């Protein structure tokens, strides 16, 4: 186990020991235990929020919808049907997960502030409905948690473990802490899993995430469902704990903002951040309130607001984010040193060109009046390198987007032979990835905030089942692409050449059977171009079929078995590199008719 994890567990143990054993020895236990229950509840919900807001980068300010649903489910089932809150809790979690998926599904394609606004709007709708349907919810008057109920056998006292209601506070400390541990455990598991990396990829760059085979909609919805269910569990407990629930406090925008705020202050996207943020801010606010007395109504809110603005301006990565480099130094290197670059198996012969593996038929794509791709058909054979050339604006990248599912064609279709030999026609980028198509982007799309290693791992997770497997694959591919010494660098700090190599490495780590390379040599200096040519040949020799768009003529002529020439969206020539180099229409398209006339 890493030193940081041990430190984290020790801190958690202390956090529990304080209200449960230590403080009762020296001070008024009741007050402090209440403070700690509050801290645990908020820390647990901030941790749950962070799965959506931090990991997946979808800033929800409506998360109290799930808190409220949890509370109402537990209390209403108790009140009307005498169902114990432990079951009510599970029912609430199920409803919340479903509600989360339902409300997020139409909103997830909204970006930035628009997604946030939609979550606020949903929260308002739910709150107003909860007030309106008073027969069901008790309306704005609220409902108390029943302590007694009349049953066939007389009055029944609903207190004790079964009913989650206690005369002693210790037990509530225990449950609240248990919920916090649950949330932290789930967040930790997600952060270290393939799913967690997929969420990070979505946060950093959705297009690139799709290209490495992440079904972005599905992982976002999964994150919302998990986060909503956890928030709801905590809400059920807290509703019972508060003894009284009403729409204003349960579906509160201010509380929803606080959850997000705690996570941000601690550090978005880190596991420890939300807990650290809650631990820092709640006591400061409580202390300020205790110190200035009850007259200072609103003081804790003022503290929250000011701390938030201060943190955002001084350390937007939050406390944990800002401290991490120092801790990492203190805790020693987190990663073992990368192994030496594996020797290239020079001797391997190039496999022969085989059967078709990708076929495009009559592809046409229009943007308004512009026909960017006009009736293009092409076939890629197994083990072949197909070059695509054409002047700027010819429609090469549009063709690539059609071949990899990023654009649907207006007419025509693309089919791919998958690993089992079946022909398939996927309808989304991640579907093409699943069929074995990897691609790079002409305008590089690194997951900028992640390290080179993590970027390549995201590609490797397409087939790797464990994190260790993905890491090993990342190191192997990085060495192959000349990135071995840059593994721990943040992707945004790479040079142009480095970023281009990272594009290739990430696609290669997916172990594609078909690789689409979009101008990976543009902007490179001559020695880098030579390296890139060598790399493409190595990839080809490992049995990958390649389609490459390139402007560097010498390079494309050297690597291609066959070349297709595109101009104004149409295919104007196809043939061997030698034939294409002499083709009159091609020279015209590139250099103009005068050149042809002059040199004739």
């Amino acid at each position, binding site marked *: 186990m890493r030193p940081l994890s041990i430190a984290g567990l020790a801190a958690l143990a202390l956090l529990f020991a304080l209200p449960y054993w230590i403080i009762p020895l020296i001070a008024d236990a009741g007050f402090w235990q209440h403070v700690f229950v509050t801290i645990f509840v908020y820390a647990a919900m901030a941790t749950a929020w962070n799965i959506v807001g931090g990991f997946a*980068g979808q*800033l929800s*300010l409506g998360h109290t919808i799930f808190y409220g649903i949890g509370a109402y489910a537990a209390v209403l089932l108790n009140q009307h049907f005498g169902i114990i809150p432990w079951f009510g809790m599970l029912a609430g979690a199920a409803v919340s997960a479903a509600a989360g998926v339902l409300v997020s599904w*139409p*909103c997830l394609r*909204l*970006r*930035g*502030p*628009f997604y*946030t*606004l*939609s979550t*606020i*709007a*949903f929260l*308002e*709708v739910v709150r*107003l*409905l909860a*007030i*309106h349907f008073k027969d069901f919810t008790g309306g704005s008057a609220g409902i108390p948690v029943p302590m007694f109920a009349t049953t066939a056998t007389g009055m029944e006292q609903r207190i004790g473990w079964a009913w989650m209601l206690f005369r002693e506070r210790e037990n509530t400390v225990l449950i609240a802490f248990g919920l916090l541990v649950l949330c932290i455990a789930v967040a930790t598991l997600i952060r270290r899993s393939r799913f967690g990396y997929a969420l990070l990829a979505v946060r950093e760059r959705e297009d690139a995430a799709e290209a490495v085979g992440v079904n972005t909609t599905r992982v976002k919805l999964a994150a919302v469902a998990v986060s909503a269910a956890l928030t709801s569990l905590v809400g059920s407990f807290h509703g019972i704990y508060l003894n009284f629930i009403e729409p204003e406090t349960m579906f509160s*925008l*201010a509380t929803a*903002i606080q959850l*997000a*705020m705690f996570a*941000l202050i601690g550090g*978005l996207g880190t596991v420890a951040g939300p807990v650290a943020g809650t631990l820092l801010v709640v006591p400061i606010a409580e202390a300020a309130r205790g110190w200035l007395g009850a007259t*200072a*109504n*609103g*003081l*804790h*809110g*003022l503290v*929250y*607001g*000011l*701390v*938030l*603005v201060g943190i*955002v*301006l001084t350390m*937007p990565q939050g406390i944990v984010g800002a401290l991490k480099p120092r801790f990492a130094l203190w805790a020693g290197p987190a990663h073992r040193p990368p192994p030496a670059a594996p020797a290239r198996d020079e001797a391997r012969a190039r496999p022969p060109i085989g059967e078709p593996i990708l076929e495009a038929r009559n592809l046409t794509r229009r943007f308004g009046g512009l026909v960017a791709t006009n009736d293009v058909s092409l076939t890629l054979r197994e083990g072949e390198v197909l070059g695509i050339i054409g002047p700027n604006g010819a429609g090469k990248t549009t063709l690539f987007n059609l071949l990899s599912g990023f654009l649907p064609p207006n007419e025509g279709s693309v089919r791919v032979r998958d690993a089992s030999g079946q022909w398939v026609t996927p309808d989304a980028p991640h579907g093409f990835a699943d069929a074995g198509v990897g691609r790079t982007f002409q305008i590089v799309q690194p997951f900028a905030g992640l390290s080179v290693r993590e970027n390549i791992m995201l590609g490797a997770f397409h087939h790797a089942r464990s994190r260790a497997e993905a890491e090993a694959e990342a190191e192997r591919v990085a060495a192959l692409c000349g990135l071995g010494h840059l593994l721990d660098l943040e992707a945004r700090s790479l040079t142009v050449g480095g970023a281009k190599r990272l594009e290739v490495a990430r696609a290669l780590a997916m172990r594609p059977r078909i690789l689409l390379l979009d101008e990976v040599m543009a902007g490179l200096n001559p020695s880098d171009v030579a390296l890139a040519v060598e790399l493409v040949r190595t990839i080809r020799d490992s049995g990958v079929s390649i389609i490459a768009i390139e402007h560097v003529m010498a390079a494309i002529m050297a690597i291609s078995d066959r070349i297709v020439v595109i101009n104004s969206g149409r295919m104007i020539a196809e043939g061997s590199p030698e034939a294409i180099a002499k083709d009159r229409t091609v020279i015209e398209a590139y250099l103009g008719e005068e050149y042809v006339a002059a040199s004739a």
Partner: protein
Amino acid sequence: MEVLPQLIVNGLLLGGAFALISIGLTLVFGIVRVVNFAHGELFMAGLFGAWLLSSKVGLTPYLAAVPLVVILFAAGAAMQRFIIQPLMDADPHIQIFATVGVGTALINLALILFGADIRTSELPWAREPVRFAGLSVARGFLVAFAVSMVATAALVLFLKRTHLGRAIRAVAQNRNAAPLMGIDVPRIYIITFGIGSACVGLAAAVLSPLFPAFPTVGTYFALTAFVIVVLGGMGSLEGAVAGALIIGLVDSLAGYYVAPDLKEVVYFLIFLLILVLKPAGLFGVRGSE
């Protein structure tokens, strides 16, 4: 029964009141490209300002518009200069958090200073009804509607005709090319944020006789303004006015025909539909989603 015409008139007048708050929000979004989640709290501050000026200084609420416009311009400019400007290149989430933080601080500051009580700027004249053609409307709403329309027209003229206005629009079109034309982009942002906030100051003064001040009053108006601005298209002044009139009508009609406590549900549902189906809004500007 002349219910429907009365409801329509009420709705349009209410829309006029909403418009004045919404144009500031949409202007800031269109130019600075930041959604100011503290916009409603600036309005709340304006309402308290109007109440202080009328009850403590004895200024008629309408006259309080002059100092309020100046004060809120300064407050908005300061907010842009010291909080948003350093975060211009940060992740949009960080900007949202920054404005949310300012909003939270302002609500609670008001709670500390004034308590949770309702404070009304006294101007009985504004609540007296004017009757014509069987309809009855409060004078205050007529004033608010008129001020709103004049202010929007003035703002549009300012943006279209003056040198500064053209510079502001140039920044909105391309913030990278604008400095090449000698435009001081950070200064434009500060001025724009100031103008957006000043609109709210004007709105607060004009609406103070009709709407009492209390710390969380801004949330209601801000949410309504978000709905309006998204409906009209983020960044479009004309869209904000049209959106405000539509939402005013929806408010008035849904309050009568659906249920008074569900009228907001109706327009939040419209809001969600617009977000999902046509995120650029009815009069949306390029790339605003």
